[in-house]
C-alpha cells in the first residue's frame, strides 16, 4: 500500500519526461501509416478536401483525419507546432502569404527533391512558383539568398483575387477609372456603387494591393526598398480611401469579405473585388443570394499602368519537417492534385488550378468564375511580397490604411507613417 502512495507522483513524472522527449521525424519512412493527419482551415477552402478525403481511404486504406481551425488560429497552430518541431500533423494547409515565414524557418520538407513531385504542364507555373522557396522571381530575402529553390507546398485551392460587377446593370469595366465612373453612376439610396473591404490589417491590404499594383505602385522595389510612399502608391491610396469610398456604404472601415459578398447577394451593391470562395459560398449560392446569374466575374481592371494585376491567394498543402509519414503525405498530395481527383474535387465545390478544368465548357456553366480565374492565372497574378516579415508589414500597412479610410489620418500622413514603420521593421530584420 505504501508503494502505491507514490503512484500518482510517478505517473506525473512519467508524463513530464514523455512530454519533454523530442519529436522523431522520419520514423515511419517507407511504412504505410494507418492514417494521415491534416491541419486545415475551416470554411469553404477545405470543404472539397473533406468531401474527397474518404475516397483516398477507400483507395489506399489510409484514413485521412482533418483537424480544422479558423484562419488565424490555424496560423498560430502551425507557428507553434513548427517551433516545437512536433510531428502532430503529416500535412498542413497554408495560405500563400505564410510561405515565406515557413520557408525561411525551414519548417517544411522539400517535395521535389525528397519525394519526387514534379511540375505538371496542365497547371500554370505561377501556381508552383508560389509554393517554391526561395521565390524563383522577384526580390529574395537576405536569409534565403544563395539557397537552392525547392517546392515546399502544392496548391490545392487555386484562389486568385478577381473582380465582380452587376452585369445585368452595366458593361464590364476595363479600367479602374471605369470602375469609379460606374460606381458613381449606379450609386443610389440603399444601393452602393462599390464595396470597399476596409477592415483593419489583412482585409484592407488584400483589397488594396491589386489597386496599388495596377496603379504602378508597390510596397517594395526589387531591392526591398520601401516604395509605399512614392507618388504612384500614394495615388492608389487616395483612389481607395477617397474616390472609391465616396461610392461605398458607410462603415467601410469594418467591412470584411463576408459583409462584401452579403451586400452583393442582397442586391445592395454594384461591384467589388472578390475571392472565388465568396462566389461559391454566397454570391452564386441560390439559397442566400438574390443576384445569382446577375453578376459577372472578370480579371482585375487595368490602372494607369495599363495593366490589371490580380493577387494570388492560393491555399497549399505542405509536409512539416517533423512529419514521420512524409512519403505517404506526398503521395496524398499527388493523388489530390491529379487530373482525375480534381474532377471530383471540383464537383464538391473545390477551386482548381488546372487549365483543362478551368477551361472546360460544361464546368464553366456550373462555375461562372472559372473563365475569369483561368485568365487571371494566365496573366500571372502577383503574390504578396515574399518576405518573412510580411505579416508585420501587412499589420502596419493595414492599420494605417484603415486609419486613412476612417478619416483618422490623411492619405499622405497614413502612407508616410506606414512607410516609416515598415522601413524600421525591415532594417531591424536585416533587409
Amino acid at each position, binding site marked *: 500500500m505504501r508503494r502505491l502512495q507514490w503512484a500518482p*507522483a510517478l505517473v506525473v513524472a512519467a508524463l513530464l519526461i514523455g512530454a519533454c522527449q523530442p519529436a522523431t521525424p522520419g520514423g515511419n519512412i517507407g511504412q504505410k501509416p494507418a492514417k494521415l493527419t491534416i491541419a486545415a482551415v475551416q470554411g469553404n477552402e477545405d470543404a472539397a478536401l473533406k468531401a474527397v478525403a474518404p475516397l483516398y481511404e477507400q483507395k489506399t486504406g489510409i484514413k485521412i483525419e482533418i483537424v480544422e481551425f479558423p484562419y488565424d488560429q490555424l496560423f498560430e497552430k502551425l*507557428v507553434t507546432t513548427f517551433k516545437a518541431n512536433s510531428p502532430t500533423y503529416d500535412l498542413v494547409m497554408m495560405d500563400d502569404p505564410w510561405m515565406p515565414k515557413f520557408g525561411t524557418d525551414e519548417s517544411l520538407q522539400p517535395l521535389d527533391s525528397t519525394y519526387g513531385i514534379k511540375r505538371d504542364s496542365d497547371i500554370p507555373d505561377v501556381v508552383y512558383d508560389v509554393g517554391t522557396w526561395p521565390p524563383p522571381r522577384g526580390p529574395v530575402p537576405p536569409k534565403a539568398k544563395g539557397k537552392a529553390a525547392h517546392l515546399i507546398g502544392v496548391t490545392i485551392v487555386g484562389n486568385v483575387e478577381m473582380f465582380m460587377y452587376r452585369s445585368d446593370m452595366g458593361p464590364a469595366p476595363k479600367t479602374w477609372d471605369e470602375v469609379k465612373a460606374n460606381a458613381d453612376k449606379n450609386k443610389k439610396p440603399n444601393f452602393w456603387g462599390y464595396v470597399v473591404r476596409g477592415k483593419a490589417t489583412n482585409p484592407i491590404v488584400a483589397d488594396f494591393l491589386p489597386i496599388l499594383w495596377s496603379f504602378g505602385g508597390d510596397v517594395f522595389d526589387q531591392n526591398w526598398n520601401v516604395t509605399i510612399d512614392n507618388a504612384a502608391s500614394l495615388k492608389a491610396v487616395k483612389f481607395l480611401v477617397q474616390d472609391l469610398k465616396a461610392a461605398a*456604404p458607410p462603415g467601410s*472601415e469594418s467591412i470584411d469579405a463576408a459583409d462584401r459578398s452579403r451586400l452583393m447577394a442582397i442586391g445592395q451593391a454594384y461591384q467589388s473585388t472578390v475571392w472565388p470562395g465568396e462566389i461559391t459560398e454566397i454570391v452564386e449560392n441560390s439559397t442566400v443570394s438574390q443576384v445569382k446569374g446577375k453578376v459577372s466575374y472578370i480579371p482585375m481592371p487595368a490602372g494607369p499602368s495599363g495593366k490589371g494585376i490580380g493577387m494570388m491567394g492560393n491555399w497549399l498543402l505542405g509536409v512539416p519537417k517533423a512529419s514521420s509519414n512524409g512519403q505517404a503525405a506526398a503521395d496524398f498530395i499527388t493523388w489530390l492534385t491529379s487530373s482525375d481527383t480534381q474532377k471530383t474535387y471540383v464537383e464538391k465545390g473545390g477551386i482548381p488550378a488546372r487549365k483543362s478544368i478551368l477551361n472546360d465548357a460544361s464546368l464553366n456553366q456550373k462555375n461562372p468564375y472559372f473563365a475569369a480565374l483561368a485568365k487571371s492565372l494566365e496573366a500571372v497574378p502577383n503574390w504578396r511580397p515574399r518576405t518573412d516579415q510580411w505579416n508585420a508589414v501587412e499589420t502596419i500597412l493595414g492599420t494605417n490604411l484603415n486609419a486613412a479610410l476612417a478619416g483618422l489620418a490623411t492619405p499622405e500622413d497614413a502612407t508616410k507613417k506606414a512607410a516609416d514603420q515598415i522601413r524600421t521593421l525591415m532594417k531591424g530584420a536585416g533587409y
Partner: protein
Amino acid sequence: MANVTARPALSRVGAGRFTRQERLAYTMLAPVFGTILVIVTYPFLLAVVQSVQDAAGREFVGASNYANALANPLLYEALGATGTYAALVMPTEIVLGLGLALLVHRVVRSTGVRALLFVLATIPLVLPPIAVGVIARLIYAPGYGVLNHLLIVTGIVRDEINWLGQPTTAMPAVASVDIWQWTPFVYLVLFSGLLTVPREEIEAAQVDGASGWQQFWHIELNYLRPLVLLIVFFRLADVLRVFDHVFVLTGGGPGNTTQLLSLYLYRIEFKYFDSGQAAALAVMVLVAVSIAYSLVTRALPVERR
C-alpha cells in the same frame, strides 16, 4: 494545535521529518502540484527566459526586450484602449447586474420564475466568445446590420450609423458585447449574495421603518461588498484576455482605436514574430496584475485564524 498533536494517527514514523499522514497528504497532492508545474509554472518560467532572449530565442539580450516593449508607442495606445474598455464595461456590468439582482430578489417570489431567470442568465456565459462576436457583427454590420435597420424603421435615425467605423462608436459597440455577455454573471453572483442576507436583519430594519434604499445601503451592501470585489477580480482578468469579439467586429480598428492589450500582444507574437518582446510584455502584465490582485485581495474580508 493541542488537538492536532494529541491525535495518535499523526505520530512520527522513524526519524523522518514528516508524519505518515503528512507524507500521504503530500503524495496525494503531488499530481496537483505536477499539473500546476506543467501548465502554469513551466510556461511562466519559459516566458521569463524568452523575455531575455532575442526573437529567434538564440541569444541572451538582457533587458532590451523590456526596453523595446516599453518604448513602443503602440503599447500605450493599447493600454489606453484597454483602460477605456474596462472603464466602460466593468462599472456598467456591476450596476446593471446589481440592479437586476435587487429587482429579482425583491419583486420575483416564484421559485419557478427565479429558476428560469437563472437558466436564461447562464446562456450568455456558456456561448463561445467567437460566436458572440459573429452574432454581434450581424447587429452592427454596415449595410445589413439589424440595429441600424430597427433604428431607421422606427424613425429614430434617418441615416445609418457607422457603429464600427468611427472611434466614438466603435469602442462602445465593442464594449456592449461584453456587457451583454457578462452582466448575467454579475447578476448571478450578486443574487446569490442577496440570498445569504439574514431575513431577521431585513425584518428588523423594516420594523424600524427603514426604506428600501436604506435596507440596501446599510444591510445588503455589507454582505455584497466582498462579492463585488470578487467580481472586479474576475472581470479584470477577463478584460485583459478579451480578444475574439473585438477581432471579429473591428480587427482593432478604426486605426488602433480598439486594439486592446490582448490583441496587441497577439500581433507582437504572431504578426511581428517578436517572441522576446511578447514574452516581456506578458511578464510585465503578469506582474502588474499580480500587484493589482494583491491589493484587491487585501480588501477582501478573509477569515483568519
